[in-house]
């Protein structure tokens, strides 16, 4: 425990800028993965344990596209679109067959695919770790804001995640398709009776969730090493975010991810040997005081 370092940071503007930005970076990347997870749970009632694999595929798709084209924009597009297509196929061919099944069965199927997807990546890209590399446009000096250090690439990352959060929030609450999705989440039988293809909605939501995780993987690819199984640790943190925010709540995922990012960032200063523990402790405190999570709804 180093409370002096934490107190010193809280009284320094440069430290506050650096650590807060650091927390936002961690949080926003986590949000992109967790929001897909919570969306799939909210609509399909599936605890998608294979969700981390889409983050992994997004990173590998982006790296390959970047190596082939040299275009960062195309790399991001490949990461997001590739995983959306993969998510749609996965949902239609496999996951749609276990809807309504026991949760344990769903988890086992998902876990089997975690291992299968890792092996697929190993077969295609090899077992060794890879690095995409930072595009030249972002190989620049970091910005110095109030004495704090902020890399431009991370500003882009925060911006993209923020736009995704806003579009998703408005899309689901205001657009017609958003209303249909929300209706399908509450009463799929009624939606189906109205002549709406629920299979299409489910496939679309799964693809959207996969796309968001893939986008997160693509954004992380320039700064994280790529290796088979890389989605697992992100998945665990995403589950924590989802549980803290409330299963199925998009706003909860956003708040939960930001809180977790800030806990990690400031916790590394004040509690350097207990940063991981802090995350779990926070989750326990939230669940004990509000078992449905911060923005979760009580079961009817």
């Amino acid at each position, binding site marked *: 425990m180093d409370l002096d*370092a934490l107190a010193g*940071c809280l009284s320094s503007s440069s*430290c506050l800028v*650096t*650590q807060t930005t*650091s*927390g936002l*970076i*961690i949080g926003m*990347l986590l949000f992109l993965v967790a929001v897909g997870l919570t969306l799939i749970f909210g609509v399909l009632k599936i605890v998608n344990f294979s969700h981390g694999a889409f983050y992994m595929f997004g990173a590998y798709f982006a790296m390959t596209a970047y190596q082939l084209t040299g275009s960062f924009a195309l790399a991001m597009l490949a990461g997001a679109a590739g995983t959306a297509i993969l998510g749609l196929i996965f949902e239609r061919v496999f996951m749609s067959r276990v809807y309504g099944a026991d949760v344990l069965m769903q988890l086992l199927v998902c876990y089997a695919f975690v291992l299968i997807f890792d092996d697929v990546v*190993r077969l295609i890209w090899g*077992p*060794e*770790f*890879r*690095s*995409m*590399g*930072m595009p030249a446009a*972002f*190989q620049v*000096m*970091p910005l110095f804001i109030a004495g704090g*250090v902020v*890399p431009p*690439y*991370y500003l882009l990352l925060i911006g993209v995640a923020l736009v995704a959060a806003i579009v998703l929030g408005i899309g689901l609450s205001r657009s017609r398709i958003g209303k249909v999705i929300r209706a399908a989440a509450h009463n799929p039988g009624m939606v189906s009776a109205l002549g709406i293809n629920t299979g299409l909605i489910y496939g679309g939501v799964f693809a959207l969730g996969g796309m968001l995780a893939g986008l997160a993987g693509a954004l*992380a690819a*320039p*700064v*994280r*090493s790529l*290796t088979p*199984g*890389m989605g697992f*640790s*992100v998945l665990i943190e995403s589950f924590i975010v989802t549980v803290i925010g409330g299963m199925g709540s998009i706003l909860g995922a956003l708040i939960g991810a930001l809180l977790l990012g800030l806990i*990690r*960032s400031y*916790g*590394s*200063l004040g509690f*350097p*040997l207990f*940063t*991981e523990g802090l995350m779990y402790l926070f989750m326990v405190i939230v669940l004990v005081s509000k078992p449905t999570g911060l923005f979760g709804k009580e079961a009817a």
Partner: protein
Amino acid sequence: MTRTRTPGISRRSTLALMGAGAMSVAAPWVARAQAKTIKVGMPTILSGRVAQLGTSSRNAVMLEVEKVNAAGGLAGRQIEMVIRDSKGQPQEAARVARELVNTDGCEWLIDGEASSGSFAVHEVARDLGVLCVHTCSEASSLTADPKQHIPNAFRCVRQGIHDSIVGGSYAAAISKAKGLKKWATCSPDYAYGRDTTGEFTLYLKRFAPDVEIISESWPKLFQPDYTEVVTKILQAKPQALYSCLWGGDLTSYIDQANIYAMFGQMEVFAVNMADYTALTVVKNLPKGIHSGNRYIKTFPTTPENAAWGDAYKAKYNEYPTNWSWQNATAVMFLAEAAKKANSTDGKKIAETLKGLTIKCPFGADGTVTMRGDDHTLVGYAIGWGTTIPQEPYVPEVKAGDWKTIFELEAEWKKSKGYT
């Protein structure tokens, strides 16, 4: 008087059955003794995050075994490698090692495990009495601690304490020359990270007593994101940083530290940087990172070492790793010992290996020795240098002095109660 045959099993049949039974029980040993090939078992890590290193271990062993077999084998017997995946799990490594000996009939073991698994395999070797050469574990206690010692196990690997002595004295010299008094450390939070960092700072402070460690970071092994670690180090404003992160963790860390322009703000000492696994993967390798040599074909600067690196690349289309040279050296030692002993008997080989010096591309003076009293490798090329972003990556390596290593290692052993 005629003897009547009693019903049941006759004496002749009983003897025949007993004989057959004895033969069937003894068959594996009889067959083994007569076998033209000698089976050598190798548990190693062929899946998971460290699979690349395990694969490179297997490749290096096969490269050398092919040479030995082409030259007529060991005491007239061809080597047959039986290589199994331990998945990097100690319990699996122990199970696989036992199975290789008991079921597959392997007479020796080459243990391609990292530190955690090697101790498990070591206990199997202790139990079965089979000749075992550890080829990847750098944990010094594996051979330095007398409690671990068994007559049939050897370690053909660079050692943490050797690296720390050379690294600590190298860093201290630079520290004094450049006035680097405030240091930070950032190493993985497990035995290797803690031990190696502790030993490095021990020798850094010994040679540069005014050095102060102002910040320590212990990210967990295989942590995907180091942002909070990077910013914490930047806040501390050290003049120098030591890290023993390795593999994908090191490359992630460098990529993330790069965009904070961290490498321009302090001298960085990353012991595991100068290995092709990291050097060739990092796309924007910063200039001027200090690193210990792992495997690099330009150090030692000899035609033999360069030729070995090129031969490996020609066969496997990639450069070897630190684990490669260690595994290759193990096969070289075993071949030379079998030649000297004119036998493949494990006990005779073990006796011959003690104190054996062989010619080797990775030796500081062209030779390496299997030290007799603690069964560990000494005399290998060891040094530190600074990186550049393209080949040869570390153009100049300052070689460590083995006389100093031996002196300080002896002191260290005494302080740990090993002697």
